[in-house]
């Protein structure tokens, strides 16, 4: 079960990535058609299920611009900076935790098993 806990955290991390993307989208949208097909977490979901280490690194690259945007907002104390702080903190804390635990458990490459995938998916949705 301890092994499965890490996958539950991965699922929640993807969910936090979605929240980060949503925050960025709301501030940058000009028309309803600007909405992306999927948010960041959804985009990387399959990749993470296939290979958690690679998938997470790809996720982090994807959300980098959003993190940067949040940092800028917090620094300048712009409108809604409190929410930016919250979503960024939620994502980063969980990300560091997941990376650390993956290193400890030596989960590097390769596809995870069915049960683990289920845990990721269920926790993401």
């Amino acid at each position: 079960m301890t092994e499965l806990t890490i996958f539950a955290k991965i699922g929640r991390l993807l969910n936090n990535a979605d929240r980060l993307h949503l925050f960025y989208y709301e501030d940058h949208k000009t028309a309803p058609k600007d909405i992306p097909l999927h948010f960041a977490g959804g985009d990387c979901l399959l990749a993470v299920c296939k290979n958690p280490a690679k998938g997470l690194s790809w996720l982090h690259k994807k959300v980098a611009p959003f993190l940067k945007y949040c940092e800028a907002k917090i620094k300048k104390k712009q409108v809604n900076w409190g929410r930016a702080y919250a979503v960024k903190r939620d994502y980063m804390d969980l990300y560091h935790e997941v990376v650390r635990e993956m290193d400890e458990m030596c989960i590097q490459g390769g596809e995870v098993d069915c049960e683990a995938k289920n845990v990721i998916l269920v926790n993401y949705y």
Partner: protein
Amino acid sequence: MITEAFMIGEEVKKVEGRKRTLHPNICPVPTQRAAWFTVFINAQGKCSGVAPTEQDTLKGGLYYFGDAHNQWPVVKVENKKNQSGEFYERWEEGIPRVNESHAQKMCIKIKRVSRIVADIVQGHNPPKAVGSVGIMADRMEKVDSAFVNDIFAKIFNSLSTDEERKLATKLMYLTFELEDYDKLKVNPVAHRKNYEFVSDCLIHETDRLCKDEDKGDKRDMFGRPYVSSAAWKMPQIFVGNKKYYIHSRNEKSLCYASYGRNGGDSCPLAFSSRKQVVETLQYLGLPEHKDIYWMTHIRKVSSKEQKGKRETVFTVVTMVYSPLPKEMMQELQRYIEIGGEVARLAQQGHENKTKTRSVEIIQALKGNREYKDNGLFYLFTFEIPSNGPSHLLLTQTMTIPQFLKQVERWTHGWDNFEPAKFNGELTVKKGETKPLYDSITAYQLLRVINNRWSRTAGIRDEKIQSRKRIEYQFMQVPDMIRLFFGDRVTVDRCLNVMANNHVFLLLDVVDRIHNGELYHLVGDNPRTDIFSLPVAIGELLYQKGITKEVYEQSPAYHFGRAMACLSRVQKAVLKRDDKKKPRRMVGTEYVHLGLARPRHALNLALTKGGIYLRRAKRDRMVEHSQIGESKSYYNYWALVRSLEVLKQGLPAKWTDTEKVIMALGYFNNR
């Protein structure tokens, strides 16, 4: 079985106003399709005319004295070939000529049996009205083969169509009657009062034999004196219109360890005991007691059999140590439900009344003072097959309060399934809906379990639209009664059958509805199975001790629910994007796999359906952030709630109970 019939007989004796039964030698006529004619005989012993027997006479109960070979006054004429040749030797211009040997035999039989009956009647000071019996015997003394040919000539002359002639040639029943019975001021020969008088005479003879046996020093198995068990062969009894024989075990039949030996000697019976057993079975087997005390049941051992063996099953409740009110016997019987009034109401389409009627029966049982006594009652079920020995299937002893408790428990089981608001009715075809049943009797449950649905024409085969239904006698009447009394082993067996067979139907039905194809499954005669399956499953789960509150929180239910919600989310997303719906939704595709491999199925469903789920999640998040709620994504919320329960993990395989719960979850949320 004889012991149980004897015990029931002790109670039947106390039933007031019970209908008198006829002596076993007086039998109702068969109801098979045949040509019926009444032959009138004049004082010279000649046939003065023939007429078709009136339907009122047939329906009123025509009887004959005797057996297959000796009958009076109704004689069977079948065109059979024997050593002497065909019955109708030749035909001359459409009129048959009866084989001389056959005609002679017929005359001898008619004369002999008429004389036997007349002698029986004569010895008991018959009233004048019954004098027709003696007069008929005297007239029959004069008949000969020319008389027989005359009868058939008159009959075939009166027939006009080929169909009538064909039927008459194949099988005919002739009732002999006096031409001038009204002038002689006597009853017609085939009159009920005549039969009753003959029956009384025969019963009087048996009573005399019973009194003679009082002097015997031997005791039978019931403690009654008897003289000799040499000729203790049981006479035949009639149940409905079918004849059954009760006979002792002989050396060729299998031996019961309890008796230790074969043969009539192992079970000596005095005349009075025999009489009691036969009268009891006759009382129970009256036509008006069909589906109250007895039912015909077809036993099929495997699905390959075209027709199973037809057997009569008696289920009787009888009180011991106190009188048995007639109403109680009938009410209890109906409640145990071997196809009584409550089931008939359901079959006639009055499903709403089934529940009301059952509640009324319970109130009636509880409200009656006598029922509150702590008297014991026995429940017997035994069967009499058409060939082979009769045997006991089930006995059960309980007190009245125990029985009432079980009755109430069964009734509570109906509330164990509550259809979702939009799933309370199924759309059979466009514009036509039919509600799900809200109650089910033990007999209906038996019927549901016994229907197998083949998996060959399933949803994967797009060409074949319907499933094939096979009737398979998996559960018998004793199983039904054990189920009613909540026997766990029987409940588990039923759940096993449901899990391996009926869940596919349940899953199929829902998808057919959504494709607008339920009509192809049910056709013009909607099969009640589909509409009673959910309540049947609810009842079985309740009998197992799993209530609605428990199963609705189980992972199996939520798995089914998740699959259903997944399909709904997919449909909503496609509708939003204005795209065409595929033939098979993601949830539908993987719910069947989920029965065998739940983890794998969930993984595949969430992966393949991910594209829609991610879209739904995205839209939900945007809507929620804009307006504070996401009304349009109820299905997504329902899915998420189910996934919350599934977070705890799924087993590698479901048990039978869980499979059934899963199907219910899918059905109720689809």
